[in-house]
Each structure stands twice: as C-alpha cells, then as structure tokens.
C-alpha cells in the first residue's frame, strides 16, 4: 500500500528573472483606461483646471513600462519560485498550521457576490454576507465556549492586541485603569503576547518555563498582585506541551482581579477536545488563516477572531452583527466598545472560508482534525527522535506533545558544526519550505518546530522524515555540502543577514540603484 518514501530528486524552478524595473521598455503599456469623453474635456478643459496650483504631479512616477504579456509572465515566474502550501509538504512552518485551504472556498470568496460588495451598502442588500458572519459567530461560540465574537482584527496579532484593549477598557471601566498596569505572559508565548499588551501601555512580565515546559504556579503567584491587569496564555505553546494546570493559573489571576486571555492560534490539536471556556478564561482569539484553513496569502490578509465572555461583550469593536428574527443588521450602538481596530468589519473573506470549512467538517470532523493533527505529530516525533541523528526534543522529561513539537539540533551542531541555518538551506534542496526554528529569544538552542497538520498523509510525513534523516547524515559525512547549500534552489547562497545599519537599507529599487556596493553592479540600472 502507498508510496515508498524516497528522496525526491528536486530542483526549484529557476527563471533568473530580473527586477521588474529592468524589464521596462518606455512606451509600452500593460493596460489602457477609457478615454475621457470629449464632452467632458470640452466642459472642463485641461486637467490643470481641475487641480489646484502646485498640486499637479510634475514628474511622472518612474514606474516600469511593460506590455501585458510581459507583466503576466514576470509574476507567473515569480509565483513558480514560491513554495506555497498547495505545492509542498509544508510541515516545517510549525506554529503556522499550514493546512489545506479548500479550493471550493476560493470560489466563494472570488464570487462577485462577495468581491463586489461595498462595506457601506444598505444592509438590505448584504443579508447574505451578514448571515454568514452571524452564523459563523454562533459556530465560534460553540467551538470556544465564549459568548460573543468580533471578526474585525486583521490577524492573530491584532486579535491579541484587541484583547489587550478590552482588558484595559475593562479595568478603566471599573476605575482600576491606573492601578492595573501589569500583564503577565510566558517567555515561550508568541512575541505578540508581550508586544500587544505593551503596545496597549502595559508593563509586561515574561515568565520562564520550568522543566515542565511551562512556568510554575509559584512563579506566577510571585508576580501576581493588585497591579495585575491580566495574563496572556497560550496552550499548548509552540512547544506542543499542554499546560494541565492552566485552570489554576486562571484562578490565581482571577482572584487577583485580573483577566485571562487565551491565545488560540495553536488550536489545531484541540478542536472538539478542549475549549477556552473550560479553562475559565475571559477572552481568546483564533487565527482563521491557520486552524480554520483560510490561506496564508504570503502573510495575509488574515483574521483574528476575537472571542469574549458575556461580561466583556460590550467592549468588542464596533459594529457587531445582530439578527432581529427577520433581518441581519450591523449594530453600531455600542457605547462601551473599544472602538475600531480595523476599517469596516475585517477580512470577511477569511470568515466565509472558515465558515465553509467548519460546515464541511461538522462536529465530528472538527474533532477528527484535532485527533489526526495529534496523531501525525506524535508519529513524526517518534520517527524523528528515533531515526534522525543529532536531533533531540526540548523538555525531554515531558514526553507528551499535542499537534507540534519543538526540537533542537544542538547535538548535530556540536558534532558537525552544521547549524539550523545550514539545515534550513539544505532542506530547500529537497523541495521543502524552509522551517520555523522558534520565536525569540531562543530558549532552546538550535531550535526547530515542525507541525504536521491533518492535511498531510502518512506518506508525506514519512518523506519529510526521510529528508531530515538524509540531511543529518550529510551533516555527519559531508558537512560542507550542507553548509554551502542550497544547491538546487532558485539561487545559491546569498548572505542575507548583513544589514545592521539603517543607512544600508535597500527596500526599494531606487534605493538599491543609489546605494548598492559598486563591486556588485553587474549592469547599470534602468
């Protein structure tokens, strides 16, 4: 049965494609716009008549000029040089929950019935989309046990930020705004759990894990006080370790008068198994572009679904979606709301996709997602740890992992001098997406965090493991091969971490043309 795991003789598409500016041919046109009606030109005369003095653009923007087939070709070639989840065994980007984004859902969001909707249309004409938002909110309530949702945040980070805002508003509302200035989180949490409350003005306390992979109750108790505004928890964290005493954490914070926020971006292993509600938290957020299958889109657009308990519902961003028994409506009458964190109502396309995905799976399917994600991860872990040289598991004395795991290549590095940066470049030679090591700071040396979601078959996982077996073998037998990788990618090694001075920054072609070191000029810019 099934395919034998074999190493793929891969080579990336390599088009050696210039920067779009280098393809410019002055005079060419990629698209034409309507000619302005002669009658209008007669009526108003020269365009200068319509523009205040000094405001007419003097120098046309130096955009490239290409004909249409050449523009298309350029971006198609670039697309082929990109290892999207659809194309690869995208297990390496742990914490990102790289799962299959069903193509049928793309048809929904690319339907003009969605794409051509203006957010300010009379709600008489947007009943369909409001219904989906409303129904999806009911689903999310069931999935999380929370009581109200907003889909306005434009990603997980913004969802967490919005939770920090609600936390602040809550304390202000109780007259404790000035007192509750501290937020607690864990050092292993996604950086946003520190950065978002900080952005909202809180002082942040980062707890270190013990040998259990999570902080001790004592450590928590030591920092909780009347200054505590709340705690931002992730469970499981990116390590895949589940904190079984999370309820105790929550109780301690609650007792101190703080609120508890759950970061559910790593939720994929918990559908139908565990919820925010049972953990007793007050708020949470889900990344619809991760566990709920909306595609990642080269880093967005995304949606952080923000869920809160009833007591906090009045603080959610404005507007929310209501239903009066006959019609769906947008509720702007929310005097206690934190306001707006994003224009209009958020990335509704992500909501539609997530809605369709939940519908396609139903209650049993969602639980199956979680169970298979856990099974896949545990199977892979077993093979990785037993068969791959030089790798080890973090917090080895806590053997259980849910849907992902953090490993370390420290031993391999010590034995061979090969680093995670080298391994990562080499992995690309086998047709893999580069892997995610860890967020900063690196608590674990030479970290590595793969996540084999439910979208991958056993055969996929086996192929993935074989590749790392092979790379480890290479590191031990021929380290130079790994260090000088990639050899079968779109380009060979460049030194892509050299900028430390903002003066050297070249993030535009025009800056590059001005600043790039003379020796690297291969031809004069356009």
């Amino acid at each position, binding site marked *: 049965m099934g395919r034998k795991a074999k190493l793929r003789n891969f080579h990336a598409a390599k088009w050696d494609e210039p920067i779009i500016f280098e393809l410019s041919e002055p005079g*060419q046109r990629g698209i034409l716009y309507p000619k302005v009606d002669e009658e209008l030109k007669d009526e108003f005369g020269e365009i200068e008549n319509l523009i205040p003095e000094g405001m007419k653009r003097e120098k*046309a923007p130096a955009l490239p000029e290409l004909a249409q087939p050449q523009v298309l070709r350029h971006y198609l070639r670039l697309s082929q040089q990109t290892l999207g989840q659809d194309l690869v065994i995208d297990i390496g980007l742990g914490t990102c929950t790289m799962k299959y984004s069903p193509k049928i859902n793309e048809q929904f969001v690319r339907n003009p019935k969605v794409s051509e909707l203006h957010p300010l249309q009379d709600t008489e004409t947007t009943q369909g989309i409001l219904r989906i938002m409303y129904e999806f909110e009911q689903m999310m309530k069931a999935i999380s046990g929370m009581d109200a949702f907003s889909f306005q945040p434009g990603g997980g980070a913004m969802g967490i930020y919005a939770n920090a805002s609600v936390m602040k508003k809550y304390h202000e509302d109780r007259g404790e705004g000035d007192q509750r200035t501290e937020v607690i989180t864990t050092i292993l949490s996604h950086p946003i759990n520190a950065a978002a409350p900080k952005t909202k003005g809180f002082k942040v306390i980062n707890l270190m894990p013990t040998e259990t992979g999570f902080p001790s109750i004592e450590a928590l108790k030591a920092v909780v006080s009347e200054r505590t505004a709340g705690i931002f928890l992730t469970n499981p964290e990116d390590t895949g370790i589940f904190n079984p005493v999370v309820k105790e954490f929550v109780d301690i914070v609650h007792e101190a008068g703080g609120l508890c926020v759950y970061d559910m971006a790593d939720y994929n292993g918990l559908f139908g198994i565990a919820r925010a509600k049972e953990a007793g938290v007050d708020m949470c957020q889900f990344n619809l*572009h991760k566990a709920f299958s909306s595609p990642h889109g080269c*880093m967005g657009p995304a949606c952080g679904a923000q869920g809160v308990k009833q007591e906090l519902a009045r603080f959610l961003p404005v507007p929310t979606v209501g239903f009066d028994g006959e019609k769906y409506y947008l509720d702007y009458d929310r005097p206690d709301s934190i306001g707006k964190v994003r224009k209009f109502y958020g990335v509704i396309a992500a909501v539609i996709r997530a809605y369709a995905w939940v519908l396609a799976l139903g209650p049993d399917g969602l639980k199956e997602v979680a169970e298979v994600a856990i099974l896949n991860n545990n199977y892979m872990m077993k093979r990785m740890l037993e068969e791959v040289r030089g790798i080890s598991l973090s917090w080895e004395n806590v053997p259980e992992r849910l849907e992902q795991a953090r490993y370390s290549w420290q031993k391999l590095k010590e034995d061979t001098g090969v680093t995670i940066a080298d391994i990562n470049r080499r992995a690309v030679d086998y047709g893999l997406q580069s892997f995610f090591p860890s967020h900063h700071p690196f608590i674990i040396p030479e970290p590595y965090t793969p996540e084999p979601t439910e979208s991958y078959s056993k055969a996929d996982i086996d192929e993935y493991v074989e590749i790392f077996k092979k790379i480890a073998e290479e590191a031990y037998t021929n380290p130079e091969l790994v260090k000088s990788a990639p050899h079968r990618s779109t380009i060979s090694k460049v030194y892509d971490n050299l900028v430390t001075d903002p003066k050297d920054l070249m993030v535009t072609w025009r800056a590059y043309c001005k600043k790039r070191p003379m020796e690297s000029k291969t031809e004069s810019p356009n």
Partner: protein
Amino acid sequence: MVKDFIHPYIPNGIKQTKDEMLKRIGSKTIEDLYSCIPEHLRIEGRLDIPEAISSELELKQHVEAILNENITCAEYTNFLGAGCYDHYVPAICDEINSRSEFLTAYSGDTYSDLGKNQALFEYGSLMGELLDMDVVAFPTYDGGQALNTSIRMSHRITGRKQMIVPETMSKGLLMQVREYNYFMEIDFVAVDEKSGQINLQDLESKISDQTACVVIENPSYLGHIDRQGEVIGKIAHKHEAVFIVYVDPSSLGILEPPINYGADIVCGELQPLGIHMGYGTGMGGIIASKDEDAFIMNFPNHFYHIYENEKGERGFARALNERTSYAKRDDGVEFLGTNVGLWAITAAVYLSLLGPKGMYELGENIIYKSNYARRVLGQVKGLKILYPDSNSFKEFVVNFDDSKKTVTQINKQLLERKIFGGKDLSREFPWLGQSALYCVTEKTSKQDIERLGEALDEIINNK
C-alpha cells in the same frame, strides 16, 4: 478502537493508517496521546455546531444560496466610497493573486520563497516610485493602521503626545486613531466652510512644542484636494513636528506626491490599487517614510531588503529585524503580525500593469468624471455641493437640506432605482446637515452619472 473517518481534507482518517501509526508510536488509541489534557479541561459531548455538509456539491449549493442574497456593485450603480473604493481590478491582478503558490505561501525565507520575496521587494519599489520615496515598508492591515503607526512613530521620534488632525477626518478612521493612540491628545484643526481647506490660523493656534505630528488627508475624506500642503508642512516643521500625509494612491498619477510638499511619513489605503472591495476584505495600509535612521528604526513593519552574491544572484530577505516585536517581544517597536502580503503582491502587479501612463489615465478618468458628477448634481434643484471653493478628486459632498428629505430617505429611493447613493454623513458630521459623500471612479460612466442626476431630480422634485 480507532475508527475510520473519511474526509477529503484529512488523508489519515483511515483506520488502517491510524493503527499503523499508533503502532509505531506505541500507543493504543489517539485519546492516549492527549491524556495530558485533564478531564476538567475537556469539552463534554459533541460540539454544538451544524452537522457536516461533506459533499462539495451540497456545500456549494448551500453557501452560494446564501451569497446570492447579496446585491452587489456589479449589479447596481455604486456611488459609495468613503474609504473603500470601487475601482476597476485588471484581470491579471486576480490571475496572480489566485495562483496557488502565492495564495498559500506564508512566511518562507530567502530560498524557498524567492519569488514571493522578490514580488514583495517589487511592491516596495513600485510604491516607492509612486510616492517618490526610498523607504517603503511591507503594508499593514489597512490605511487606518498605517496612520496609527505613523502617529506612533511621530510620538517616538519627538517624544511628544499631541496630534493635530483635520476636523473632517472620517469618524471611522478617527475611531481607529483614538483606539490605537489612546495615550495621545488629539486636537482638531478647523477647515474653511467654503473650501474645506485647513484653517491655517487655527493650525497655528493649536500647534506647539507639544505637537508630535500634524496629519492631513489629501484628498481629504470629504474629497477636496488639499492645496496648502507645503504651508502646513512648513508650519509643522517650524515646531519640529512630524508632517504626516494620508494619501489616496489612485490620485498619484496626476497629483503631487506628499514628499514633494514636505511630508515626513506618508500613509494611506492600499485597496484602490487592484484589490476588490470584498465587503472590506481588500483593505491594506501603505506606509513609507523619509530615508532617515530615526524613521526607519521606528517602523514596526517588515522591510524586504535586496541582497546580491558574487554571482550576481539576488535574494530578498527581511532586514533590521531587531527593531521588531518578533525579535524583541515587548521591547520591540509596537507589534507585528500577519498583515496583507497578498495585497502587496496584487498592488505590485497593478502598478506594473498601469505604469506611469496608466496611473495618469486613471487619475484623469476619475477627476473628470467626478467633477462632471459634481456639476450634474449641483444643477439638480434642491441639492447643494459643499466646499465649492475647492477642487475635488473622486469624492464630494452633496447637501440635501433644501430638499427637505433626509439622506436615508433619498438613499432608499435610489436603491429602488438600483443605485447605491453616497455615504450618509448626517450622523458623522451633524454640522453638515443632511449631506452625503458621493464617489465617482473610472468605472462610473457618464451615463451612470446622468442617470443619477435624473433619479435625484425625480426623487426630490417629483419629476
């Protein structure tokens, strides 16, 4: 023990596969694998959500039946703008952003996602030309967040806490600004009643050495083109405040980029550049600054930098990461998360397609047609165009006070005629009476405008 669960999205649902995997792990059941989750944290029973619609055919019928309850701007004639714009989306923009590779890539690095990274570098580069600026960041969530960060940057750079914004700023944008910059004081600068232009005396009276930034929108939320940018910039700079301009990128083929009248930070909404409205899905935030260390190091956003090796091969990677919260957690600049990469690539395609001449034609179409609409509506008895002393670009304000009807009433009647009337401003700016913000883009035809004029004449004057 283990059961079959066969769904197209879950390859390992097969009992035999599961058993094989469990055997390798050395466990009996999958439940064993999550025994670390204590009972009291478990959900009791099944999730209370609708049963699965697992056939794609039925799912499609179900979802499309709901979506068909919508009526769209492709079906009716649309005059709504106010921050989200019904521009033409060239076919190739959709072709590229629906490519599986781009649609489903994420944060991959230099080698695995070279094409994506190049496209993102090109986004910055193309936007740089449109704005005439060297430093353009990866776009943020939406124009509002771009403005938010611009304001925060001004605070970090100046150490000051006052911002000055025009009183005509949209209430939506203002809600975002207030929320994010909660610790700052906000002062509104008045605008001239006839022109909507910033009242410079008022600005002078409000600016001080506490001012972190002066913000203008150009064109303003109410549509008129700001002609005092240079003076305002000078006033701001005289007080060592940062001059922030929120710009409509669709105007920049014909209007001067803000940097040329003194802006320090330029921000704005990306959506006009080839991205569908999608009920607000299409939003993105442009953010760019002068090429100075203080500005650069205060961006919270990613920068896609270009690298070259000896062979002349080019790679593209995120640079100066130490600034960011990814590297520094609470010590980083603001916070950073997943933003709108696909829209960045789409805007790159759009700008590559249009080029300088396309951007010019776009602007030309908008300004002529919009001015025609302004004139046509101005001639309808009972309507008044506000801010007659200014030029407008694609939006303008129509006042209905003389008609004795509310905008709500009028818009309902327009809807019956398959027209989405302009955005009701009566609650947003009560001082404007019964007014609406009308938007005309290159998609609006002369006939559409004339039909609107006739419809309003009918509705108001019972013609």
